[in-house]
C-alpha cells in the first residue's frame, strides 16, 4: 500500500513544471526521525529512572509531524498524518496495560514460588507458609471434569451442524443460539449450576462437580464454534471419495473427517480450556473455598486457583502480608497456565494443520 503513495523525491534541479505538479512534501527523513525520537523518549520514560512524564514529551515530539505537515503539505496530508499518529498511539496505549500486568504479576509473584508453595495446602496455616496444592488440584480436577462434559457435547453438536443438519432451520437456530450463548455472563452460569444443584441437594450446596457444570455452560459454545469452523474446512471431495467406496456415513466421519480436522479441533479445545480455567465467578458461587485438599468432585467445597487468589487478597487476615503474597503467587501460576495453554494451542495449529489451508 505504501508503495503506491510514495512518489520519488524531487530532484534539486527539477524543472518548475514537475514541481508544480507534485506539490511540496516533508523531507523523507523527517517523520521517521521524529517517530524514532518519540519512541526512544517513551521507552526511557517507561523503563528509565527519569519518570513517566517523558512519555508525554515523546508524544509531543511525534505530534510535531502533523503540525509541520500542515505548514508544508496542506490540510489533507496533515489530517492523514494526524490519523496515523492517533492510530499508532491507540496501539501503544493498548500495549501499556498488558506490559503493566505482566510486569507486576511476575515481579511480585515470582519471589513467592517455592517448593513449599506448590506442595502444601492451607490447612492449619496462619500467617506465613502454606501453599496452593489444594487449589491447584481443585482447578485441574474441575477443569478436567468440565472438559469431559463439554468436548463430547460440543464435538457432536458441531458434527450435527456440519454433517447432518446443514441447511435445516433447526441447525440455523442452534448455530444462532450457540453464538448468543457465548455471551452468557460467567456469574449467571454459576447461578444456573447452583439453582440446578439446589433441587437435588438442598440450599447452601457447594460441590466441585457443580463448578464443572457451570464451566461447561461457558465452554460448550466455544468448543462448538471452533470445531464447526474446522469441520467446514474439510474438503468435500474427501467425504465423497469415502462414500464412493461404500463407507457408511458415520465411519466416514470417524475415519476421514475427524482425523483431517484433528489439529484444528485440538487447538480449539485447548483455547476453550484456557478460557474457562481462569474463570472465578461461577466457582466462587458453586465450588466455594476450603483450606484442605479435597479430591472428590462430589463431596463438599473445593478450592480453585482463581477463588483462592480472590479470597487471599480480599480477606487477607492478620497479618495481611503473607496472604497477599500468596495471592500474587497464585495469580502468577494461573497466568502461566493460561499462557502455556494458549502457546500450546498456537503451536499445535502451526505444526499440525494441513498445509495450504491457513
Amino acid at each position, binding site marked *: 500500500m505504501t508503495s503506491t503513495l510514495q512518489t520519488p523525491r524531487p530532484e534539486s534541479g527539477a524543472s518548475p513544471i514537475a514541481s508544480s505538479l507534485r506539490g511540496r512534501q516533508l523531507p523523507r527523513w523527517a517523520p521517521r526521525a521524529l517517530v524514532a525520537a518519540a519512541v526512544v523518549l517513551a521507552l526511557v520514560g517507561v523503563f528509565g529512572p527519569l519518570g513517566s512524564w517523558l512519555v508525554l514529551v515523546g508524544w509531543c515530539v511525534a505530534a510535531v509531524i502533523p503540525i509541520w505537515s500542515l505548514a508544508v503539505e496542506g490540510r489533507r496530508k496533515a489530517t492523514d498524518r494526524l490519523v496515523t499518529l492517533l492510530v499508532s498511539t491507540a496501539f501503544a496505549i493498548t500495549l501499556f496495560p498488558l506490559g503493566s500486568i505482566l510486569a507486576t504479576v511476575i515481579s511480585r509473584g515470582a519471589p513467592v514460588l517455592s517448593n513449599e508453595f506448590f506442595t502444601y495446602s492451607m490447612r492449619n496455616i496462619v500467617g506465613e507458609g502454606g501453599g496452593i496444592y489444594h487449589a491447584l488440584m481443585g482447578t485441574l480436577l474441575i477443569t478436567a471434569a468440565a472438559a469431559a462434559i463439554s468436548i463430547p457435547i460440543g464435538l457432536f453438536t458441531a458434527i450435527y451442524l456440519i454433517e447432518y443438519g446443514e441447511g435445516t432451520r433447526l441447525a440455523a437456530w442452534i448455530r444462532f443460539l450457540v453464538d448468543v450463548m457465548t455471551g452468557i455472563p460467567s456469574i449467571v452460569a454459576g447461578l444456573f449450576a447452583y439453582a440446578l444443584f439446589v433441587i437435588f441437594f438442598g440450599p447452601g450446596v457447594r460441590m466441585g462437580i457443580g463448578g464443572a457444570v457451570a464451566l461447561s455452560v461457558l465452554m460448550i459454545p466455544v468448543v462448538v464454534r471452533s470445531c464447526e469452523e474446522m469441520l467446514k474446512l474439510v474438503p468435500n471431495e474427501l467425504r465423497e471419495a469415502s462414500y464412493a467406496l461404500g463407507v457408511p*456415513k458415520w465411519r466416514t466421519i470417524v475415519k476421514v473427517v475427524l482425523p483431517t480436522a484433528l489439529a484444528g479441533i485440538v487447538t480449539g479445545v485447548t483455547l476453550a480450556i484456557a478460557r474457562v480455567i481462569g474463570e472465578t465467578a461461577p466457582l466462587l458461587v458453586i465450588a466455594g473455598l476450603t483450606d484442605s485438599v479435597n479430591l472428590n468432585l462430589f463431596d463438599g467445597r473445593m478450592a480453585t486457583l482463581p477463588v483462592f487468589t480472590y479470597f487471599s487478597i480480599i480477606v487477607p487476615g492478620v497479618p495481611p502480608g503473607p496472604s497477599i503474597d500468596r495471592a500474587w503467587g497464585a495469580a502468577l501460576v494461573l497466568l502461566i497456565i493460561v499462557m502455556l495453554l494458549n502457546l500450546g494451542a498456537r503451536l499445535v495449529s502451526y505444526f499440525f494443520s494441513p498445509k495450504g489451508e491457513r
Partner: protein
Amino acid sequence: MTSTQSPERRRTTPTRPGDRIFRGTSLAAALLILATLAGVAVFLTAEGIPGILASPDDVKHGTTFVDYVVPLVFGTLLAAVLALTMAVPLAIGVALFISHYAPRKLAAPLGYVIDLLAAVPSVVYGVWGISFLAPALVPLYRWLEENLGFIPLFAGPASATGRTILTASIVLAVMVLPVITAICREIFLQTPRLHEEAALALGATRWEMARLAIFPYARSGIISASMLGLGRALGETMAVAMVLSASGVVTFNLISSTNPSTIAANIALTFNEATGLTVNALIASGLVLFVITFGVNFAARAIVDRRKDFSGAN
C-alpha cells in the same frame, strides 16, 4: 454439502444401525445445548421468583426487590457504558492499525499480542486493578476534583484509595478491548480490495481511503462488535467486585468513594454470606442480568447475521 446428502435420500439400501446411532447422538447433543439455554432461564426463574416476591422483612437488604435491583442495574449500565466509551474508539484505532497501518509482516504477531489481553484471567485483572491501577489513579482523581470539579461527574470528594467506578470502568475497558478489536480487525480485512484501490487511485490519502472505503463497509460490523463488547462488560464480575468499593447508591459522581455496585459484582460479594430468601433475591438479580445480556447479544448477533446475508463478502 447438499450434494453429499441427496444420494442418501434416494438410497434404497436399508440405513445401517451405526448410522442411526451416530445421527441420533449428534442430534441429541445439539438439542441438549438448546435444553441448557432453556434450563438457564427456567432454573433461574424458578429459584428467583421467591426472591422477587419476598417481603422486605425476610431479606438481608430489607427492601422490596425492585428497590434492591434498580441501583444495581444503574451501576451495571453506568460501568459498562463508561467502559465502552473508552474501549470502542481505542479498539477501532488498534484494529485499523493492525489491519491497514502496521507493516504487513508485523500484522499477525501484533494481533496475537492483543489477543493475549483477552487470555488474562479476570481475577488477575482484579489483582492488578486493586493494587496497581487504583493507587496509580489517585493523583489523577485529585487533579480532576480540583480543576474540573464543577462538572458533576468529577464533583468528588476524590477517593483516597482510587477504588472508584471510573477505575472499574477502565479495567473493564481493557478487558473488552481485545474482543472488539478482534472483530473489527476481521471486518476491516474483509473490505473489498478493489474499493480500497479505487479510492487510492482517485488520489485519496490513506485516511480518506479508510473513510471512503473501509468505514461504510464495516459500519454494521463495528456496531455489533461494540454490542458484543457491551455484553461482556455488563456480565464481567470479578474485576469489578475486587476493584470497586461499592455502597449501592445511585450517583453519576465517578471519582468519589461512594459508588454504585453492579449486579454481577454484588452477587459475587454477597452470595457466600447469604441465606434463605436473600439467596433467591440474588438469583433473581442474576436473572435480570441474564435477560439484559441475552437481549444485547441477541441483537448483536442478529445484526452480524443480517450483514452476512446482504454484504458482498460471501
